[in-house]
């Protein structure tokens, strides 16, 4: 189609050349027979042509070279496309058997694929047809492999690792953000080595190191105070101490002390209430629960009970 368009343009060009009136002038061709004839026929004065028109220089006839028809015409339907277009290359209209068009014509259809610079400018993915592509990562750079493919992520369910309370606490502190408490999964991602295998090795190394490090107990760990605790431990808190002292207090210092076991059995709900405040934050709901528990603890009557 496009080829036809080009040829028709060429024809048009020829027509233009033809249309130019051929003025043959005696001064240019002094010895032409035509001139002699006219002189002898009319016997008139020669017209002085002051406005001599230059003879157009002889232009060689443009000969169109014979070109082979596009390869696409001879392509079998069931060819192996991977062999035709093995790697990334610029678009070639004669190789791609598709009626693609690209660009803009004001009054016509978009230009076809032949002689279309637009199609050559844009990146193409013709080397990445489904039968060719087998890897996860590929892109249109000269190298089919994506550099991101080297990154390795390993995920470990933390519950499956043999850790005690201390080791688990320590590993959580060491991994920080990499642990997801919602599904108990530890994610280690390595990307510092150029090859995938190296990164995988490194991830394994990291996991091993983390595991062994978490089992180590440093001498300064005994100095861990309440503020460093990751959750509120009521048993070790000042609140428990003060409650115990309050419950066992009496104005008469010699009075019988209430046994600790008896108190503790009463206190589980109180403990829960206060732990909830400390762990989940102070808000109207947790505070109300704390109030109810305190009222129970101090045996205060409910307001509604008297009415």
């Amino acid at each position, binding site marked *: 189609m496009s080829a036809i368009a080009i040829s028709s343009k060429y024809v048009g060009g020829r027509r233009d050349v033809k249309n130019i009136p051929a003025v043959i002038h005696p001064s240019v061709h002094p010895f032409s027979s035509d001139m002699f004839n006219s002189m002898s026929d009319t016997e008139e004065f020669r017209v002085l042509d002051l406005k001599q028109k230059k003879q157009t220089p002889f232009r060689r006839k443009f000969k169109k070279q014979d070109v082979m028809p596009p390869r696409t015409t001879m392509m079998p339907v069931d060819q192996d496309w991977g062999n035709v277009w093995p790697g990334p290359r610029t678009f070639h209209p004669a190789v791609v058997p598709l009626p693609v068009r690209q660009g803009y014509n004001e009054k016509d259809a978009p230009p076809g694929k032949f002689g279309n610079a637009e199609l050559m400018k844009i990146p193409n993915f013709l080397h990445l047809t489904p039968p060719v592509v087998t890897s996860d990562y590929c892109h249109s750079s000269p190298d089919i492999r994506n550099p991101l493919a080297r990154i390795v992520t390993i995920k470990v369910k933390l519950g499956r690792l043999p850790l005690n309370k201390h080791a688990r606490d320590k590993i959580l502190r060491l991994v920080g953000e990499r642990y997801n408490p919602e599904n108990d999964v530890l994610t280690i991602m390595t990307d510092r080595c150029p090859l995938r295998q190296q990164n995988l090795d490194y991830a394994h190394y990291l996991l091993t190191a983390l595991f062994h490090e978490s089992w180590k107990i440093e001498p300064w760990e005994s100095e861990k105070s309440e503020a460093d605790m990751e959750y509120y431990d009521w048993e070790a808190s*000042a*609140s428990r101490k*003060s*409650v115990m*002292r*309050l419950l066992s*207090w009496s*104005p008469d210092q010699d009075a019988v002390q209430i046994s600790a076991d008896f108190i503790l059995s009463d206190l589980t709900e*109180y403990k829960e209430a*206060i732990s909830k*405040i400390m762990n989940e934050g*102070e*808000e*109207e709901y947790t*505070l109300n629960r*704390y*109030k109810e528990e*305190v*009222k129970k*603890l*101090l*045996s*205060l*009557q409910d*307001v*509604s009970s*008297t*009415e």
Partner: protein
Amino acid sequence: MVYNFFKNLTSEATLRGISSVLHKQRLFCTAAQASQILATNEKHITSFRTAESNPLKHNFDHAYRFYTIPVEVKNQLFQHGGLPKYFNEQAKAFMETCVMVRDPALEILHYLKTADYSRPAIRYVIYGESGCGKSITLAHILHYGLTAGFLLIHVPWVPNWMRVCKEVSNSATREGYVDLNLDAAEWLIHFKNQNAALLNNIDLRVSKEYAWSKREKTEEGVPLLELVEHGINRVKYASECVVALVKEIKLHSTQGRCKTLVVIDGFNAFFHPRTRVVTAEKIQVPPSKITLTEAFIEITKYDWCNGAVILTVDKTGVADDRRESFLPIYQLGKEGFEHLDPFVPISVREYSEKELESCLDYYVDRRWLQNEKSFTEEGRKELKYLCGMNPRRLMHVCAPL
């Protein structure tokens, strides 16, 4: 119409779980009976006002109604502070001091009436948004304490000491401590003003000898008032006197000679490290290094009985790095919480619909709402939305109307 009124009454009664409807009818009767009572005491039988000015008898029947604090009681309790400044001005304009009987106060009164006083003193912590009526609740409870014969230990506003203390001097007896003697003496006068009548009745004596200096000492066995007088007269020892006085009261209370009600407004100021108390060397003093703090920390401990401790925490009482929330544990901080735990948190909320209506009625009655539009339903609705049910804001919104 009368039928409707009774229907409302009964539904109200069932809501609050009050069994005796008859009782209510007697209190707030309608039609024929009402006219009789109106004739006798026109002023007091209204839907927003209760004639019951004895807080001992206040119960949920009086809720949402205003009661009057008698002038002599007001002079005794609040002459040296205790009522918010604007509230005081308001009282002056109204020619009376009226306080609304509200749920938190009733709740505390109920606890105070039913608590076991042989057990350690219970700490109640009042909290709420600023302007919701924490200090007014305290005033109501103070009135109760006075009527019920409690010995009152009342601090009108702790942040006053931490922010605008009158004089700072180094303590003579304790290393590194600071005395606020003028403030302490002022507090002693306040204490004396509130309790002199009671202290003259019950015989409390100093349990041990206090030597203030080489020549001055308070002998064992002199009346407690003498200790107070000494602090007032010899301002130099006022701080120490406060500490001694509080310890004495604690002792007497534990031994059952008196009942004590500790009421402290802005208690969280004792637990915020930043104060404006500076020594002569321009060093900021934390509250823990102020002698007065020790006294009131001591009296808010659990290790005494025959008493109750009522505190408020207020976010306006501390520096602005602790104003994100008004909730008590945040306001007290870790140290304060550990000191008070276990305490009973009491929330003071914004006005409910009924309380707001009652308050507006009261303002109209006191001619505080004068704009004609404020008597209309629409005007009241607008006031309600403008103040966001906050009592203080309502007061300010109503001021120019």
